[in-house]
């Protein structure tokens, strides 16, 4: 028990004293997972919209793959990507292994199916008559898509929350493609793992508390955006 109090106290002091290393790790975690979530949105929302509105052969298969992908184990993503990124691997020339960029790519792979799945569900949950009504009012296809996505903003924000939550709390892929290099690729999660293995439970708890607080703050912002505006 005393460890938990120590951790709370230590995390408080690390933040108040402005421990440069902790702030740097925090910022890196936030930027990496933020970038991954953004990239996942850029891919997942169009892909999800397409899957929701179009009928084509093999659609059920693709949807099943997306739904399975929502539970993609990070370690598998990490393993596959590190083999691709090896310097003798097919993407070795990019020099990505053991960099933050590799972590962003891995987290994007993890987050994209989540965003896609939520988008499909969100758009399909809309009343089909809405689509006809919008079209009847003379909207262009682009306007139609925009209005549908706007109507589906609640599930879309849920997608953002789920995707961000999945990647910022993920360890397996980040360690494999990024290692835990001091000052370069340490994240809140991987630094916690290292501190735990070192028996430095105080620091491990402190980093965990900071991670939880960070996730809470980010989600609070997302939730405020989600719940804003006229009637749900």
């Amino acid at each position: 028990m005393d460890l938990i109090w120590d951790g709370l106290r230590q995390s408080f002091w690390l933040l108040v004293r402005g421990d440069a290393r902790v702030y740097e790790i925090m910022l890196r975690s936030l930027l990496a997972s933020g970038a991954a979530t953004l990239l996942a949105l850029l891919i997942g929302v169009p892909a999800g919209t397409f899957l929701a509105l179009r009928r084509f052969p093999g659609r059920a298969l693709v949807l099943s793959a997306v739904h399975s992908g929502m539970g993609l184990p990070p370690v598998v993503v990490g393993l596959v990507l590190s083999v691709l990124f090896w310097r003798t691997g097919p993407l070795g020339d990019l020099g990505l292994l053991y960099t933050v960029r590799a972590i962003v790519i891995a987290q994007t792979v993890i987050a994209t199916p989540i965003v896609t799945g939520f988008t499909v569900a969100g758009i399909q949950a809309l009343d089909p008559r809405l689509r006809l009504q919008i079209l009847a009012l003379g909207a262009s296809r682009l306007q139609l898509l925009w209005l549908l996505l706007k109507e589906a903003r609640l599930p879309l924000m849920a997608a953002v929350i789920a995707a961000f939550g999945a990647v910022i709390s993920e360890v397996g892929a980040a360690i494999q493609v990024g290692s835990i290099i001091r000052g370069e690729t340490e994240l809140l999660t991987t630094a916690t793992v290292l501190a735990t293995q070192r028996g430095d439970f105080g620091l491990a708890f402190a980093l965990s508390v900071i991670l939880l607080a960070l996730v809470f703050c980010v989600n609070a912002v997302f939730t405020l955006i989600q719940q804003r505006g006229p009637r749900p």
Partner: protein
Amino acid sequence: MRRLLPALFPVLLLVVVAACGGGGPDRDELILATTTSTMDSGLLDVLIPAFEEESGYRVTPVAVGSGQALELGRRGEADVLLVHAPEAEERFMAEGHGVDRRLVMHNDFVIVGPPEDPAGARAAAATREVLSRIAAAGARFISRGDDSGTHQLERALWQAAGIDPEGEAWYVVSGQGMGATLGVANERRGYTLTDRATYLALRDRLDLEILHQGDPVLRNVYHVIQVDPSKNDRVNAEGAQAFAEFLVGERAQEIIGEFGRDRFGEPLFTPDAGKDEADLR
């Protein structure tokens, strides 16, 4: 035009990925594959900056198991290895994957247990005898049972003592890492085999004492190996050589010999560069 828009997203992604691209091999970069023990103890956090400052190289440490470190070397995915698996290392060298292998340091394992020492482990000289006494007394022994390097050593030690502890009532398998296993040994008042560094790091929270140490079979010997540069054109042979020479050099050996003294009151590793291999067995 409207059809183009969805197609634009993959293009955008490609641009991002391309922007991430670094280009060809960088001669200043060096990948060190090593075991979790060197990383977890914090030794690398001291050695690597010292080397980088002295040589101008940039080292990327990858801490994995000894097996994986050797495999990365075998595939030319690392330039230099710092590992502790002597038999596997000798095989690695015999198969021609490395160009040089040098003795760097050792740390050791100890047997800890409750201070009252129900099995009388303190009185035994050899590790084999300690295990016989524990088995004969039916005193509780906590095994990690996770197939880690420590667990493999433990199994080899039981085998050398001619005892098969599996299934015995006093033989408890924790299935967890070293720290958690020490916690179980503490709660259940049992004996366990641990590396010295983890025990020292957790000593304040444990009512367990070192009851046996010093037998050469408990040593964990580390070598530095330079990966054969003919594997692919990306292996950084000069960097690997510079790092290996740094590790066996005076400055690094001094750092190794002092490391841990400030935090634990005693050093965690013993520098061994230039010593005769046979003296450590």
